């Protein structure tokens, strides 16, 4: 165990901190004949027997040339990976159950293209890549997320069979990359709000007085609020628009752990809270989040939503 662990660490270790670019060296690259390679070898043996049997000097030469091609092909397959520079990129958060995408950047500083690269983090879900000469290409490695929290990028198998397909060369990459997985939202009606007038003097019903502009329609908006004329101006190309009015009573919500049914499991309660956060955000509400040990004051907007979802993703009730 000790030796295997050390060896694994030596072989698959990224670099000291796991975020720096890595140049694939020969110690990281493994190579074995592929099924096509075995077929090729078999064909060569049959051809050699044929050449000997019919005493064909050029047949011998052909078989030997093909054997040489096999050896050269091995080196070229190896070379297709060797010296490739892999740089970890970013990965955006996803909800549990969605597919997370880890961005990797492949750099090729050689004057020849590298073709037929294949990256696979989960078996059966490969990404194909080519890197042109002296260019780099960005790839998103899909990994399906199952539960909330940090999802670290599993070991990525970077493999190639280019150019001849007679060998498979591969290297394992394990950059320190992680992606935040938000809990899977559970749709539930928002808890009763305590509409507190914001700023006091601006009370009114539903904020439908002063026209303040348009915003894109969201599925939750009633069709009655769609500004049909304004929407039609874009010749139906853009999304439907909703008239927005300033003022009015801003709904202020405190999404509290305690508001969810205590009989449910923790994960379900987190899911419900997540659903509430999304709903509140979609309704443009002012909302806060109260979890055991965490208290996020009310607020709104994209950044606030992220903050709440992050807290939910990492919360340990």
């Amino acid at each position: 165990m000790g030796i295997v662990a050390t060896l694994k660490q030596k072989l698959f270790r990224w670099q000291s901190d796991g975020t720096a670019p890595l140049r694939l060296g020969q110690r990281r690259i493994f190579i074995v004949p592929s099924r096509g390679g075995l077929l090729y070898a078999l064909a060569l043996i049959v051809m050699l027997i044929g050449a000997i049997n019919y005493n064909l000097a050029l047949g011998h030469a052909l078989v030997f040339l093909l054997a040489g091609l096999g050896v050269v092909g091995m080196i070229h397959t190896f070379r297709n990976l060797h010296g490739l520079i892999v740089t970890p990129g970013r990965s955006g958060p996803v909800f549990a159950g969605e597919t997370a995408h880890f961005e990797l950047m492949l750099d090729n500083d050689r004057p020849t293209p590298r073709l037929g690269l294949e990256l696979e983090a989960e078996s059966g879900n490969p990404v194909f890549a080519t890197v042109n000469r002296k260019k780099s290409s960005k790839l998103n490695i899909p990994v399906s997320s199952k539960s909330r929290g940090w999802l670290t990028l599993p070991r990525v198998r970077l493999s190639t069979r280019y150019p001849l397909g007679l060998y498979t060369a591969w290297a394992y990459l394990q950059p320190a990359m992680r992606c935040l997985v938000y809990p899977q939202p559970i749709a539930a009606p928002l808890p009763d709000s305590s509409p507190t007038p914001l700023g006091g003097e601006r009370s009114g019903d539903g904020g439908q007085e002063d026209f303040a502009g348009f915003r894109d329609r969201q599925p939750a908006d009633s069709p009655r609020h769609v500004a049909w004329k304004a929407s039609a101006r874009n010749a139906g190309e853009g999304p439907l628009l909703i008239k927005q009015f300033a003022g009015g009573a801003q709904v202020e919500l405190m999404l509290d752990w305690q508001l969810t049914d205590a009989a449910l499991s923790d994960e379900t309660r987190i899911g419900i809270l997540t659903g509430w956060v999304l709903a509140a955000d979609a309704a443009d509400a002012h909302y806060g989040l109260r979890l055991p040990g965490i208290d996020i004051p009310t607020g709104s907007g994209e950044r606030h939503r992220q903050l709440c979802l992050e807290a939910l993703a990492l919360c340990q009730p």
Partner: protein
Amino acid sequence: MSTPAREALDRHATPWLFATALATTAPHFMHQPPWLSAVAGALLLWAVWLWWKDQRLPGRWILIPLVGAGSAGILFEFHTLFGRDAGVAMLVMFMNMKLLELKSQRDATVVVTLGYFLLLTHYLYSQSIPTGLWLLATMWLVTATLIRLHGGPSSRPRDTLRHAGLLCLQAIPFMLVLFLLFPRISGPLWGLPSDAFTGKTGLSDSMSPGSIAQLVQNGDIAFRVRFDGALPPRQKLYWRGPVMEQFDGTTWHQYKGRQPAAQLESLSPPIGYESTLEAHNQRWLLALDAPVALPPEAALSGTLTAINSKPVHERQRFRLTSSLDYRFNPSEDPLVLRRNLALPANRNPQSRALAAQWRAANAPEAIIAKALALFAADFTYTLQPPLLGVHGIDDFLFQTKRGFCEHYAAAFVVLMRGAGIPARVVGGYQGGEFNPLDGYLVVRQSDAHAWAEVWLDGQGWRRVDPTAAVSPNRIETGIADALAFGEPLPMLIQIRADWIRTLRYRWEAINNAWNQSVLGYDPQRQREFLARLGLPDADWRSLTIALGSACGLLVAGLMGWALYKQPQRDPVVRLWHQALRHLARRKVDCAPWETPLDLARRVREQRPELAEAFQRVVDAYLVARYGNTDKHLKTLRDAVARLRQ
């Protein structure tokens, strides 16, 4: 592991496969039955059309009957599905049918492997230099196809071809090493199918009017000879083939029964030479008259023909020794003599009457002289003699008086037998063309010849060439001089222009070198080559070691090429990278977005003990990079050196 996405064949890879199929099967169209070529071509066109129209490929219920029909056709044509010609026909058929089944990457791999295999089959028919070059080009194409299959849609044809060329070029040193050092086994490993050797021209074991005249119109090379010493005079170059003793009135045949052993006494110093015989599928070796020493696998027949133990099915080298002057069977078996006096009773009465008339009044020597004088008087040497009737010899001697060497030899022997002198016809070649470029004497089918041999008491068998009496040029300078202009001789030997002849000599010398050193590289030559390398009696073990070390060197060279990275030219950048490598060893990696100053800050946090030295490197680097290089390069070098301490 394999997923459908990886396995699916991309549409733009398909034309490469069509090209592969066409290039690897097309040369076979030259010797295949035409219907097979038509079917193969139609299959290819169908596949191309379906691809062009982007239509679905035919299903199994069409393909299986097609395979059945194709196999049945081949079975009907060749009466077998195996063997050389039928096997090749099957491969060609399958190759083109596979194009109708190109769905996945695996199908494509099968096409490419089949393509490589088909390349080998061409060598069953020809191993000449042009074939070799054509197949090298085809191999390039097939390899490019393989690369294209794995390179995916984003590979450009030019890059693909260039990469394939590079791979093939890099494979050539391996081929040379393996070709020279791989332990050679002389085949065959088992019995070859009966159709392995067909379509070879050469002398046959019988002779009828016109048979040699027809052979002479073929410019192919029959054999090449290199003499140890000087070239013997041309008129003595009689290459002895089958001896024909039995005559049925039209055709001369070899006697198939047992012959007493030949008693040969050589009267002139022996001449050593090496003969490289082209395949003629017969057992005679065409030694210079008369052979005195033969290779161990050959023996001398009772009629002085060198006979090999096996038919010569492929180009083969023989070491022979001959004496130009000899005495052969001075005391001959009476049975043999009787056989060589026999004439069919009811044929050629005029000739026999003439011979009987000569016999009454003359000694044998005088009879021979009379016959030769008769030919010399008013006979014509031509490749296009008139047709002869039932009494062919009579017609020739008394009416047409035009004929080729077989007519003269036959008529002469009939006259001799009629006059009571044992005589027979000898087939073979006469003369040859000396190529001054490589010192080989080239003997062609157009040098085919027939002459006579008479047995004289006390002298034994003596060669008499009646053609020499009609046309001395034939013997002294060659057939092209002996025949009138307009005779159907091969173009090649008829053209007399010097520059064309020089070109031909050069081409034939190149071909000969190819045959001798490449195609003729056999276990024997391999031993000689290794002895020259300093491995006098190499067994398979030392061969394996030599082979392994040579291949190891080549692989090492290639690995060096593969691992070689262009060095960084800018000394400042190089020094900076040295410093970064040193940091990485101390577990501080520079992120790509990090500026030198940011990195220095981080080093101060993570590795305070390095901070000061690294800060100096950063300062020097920034000045050297963005300031005046000349002055500060040394500062940077010193700073990096100090960091590494």
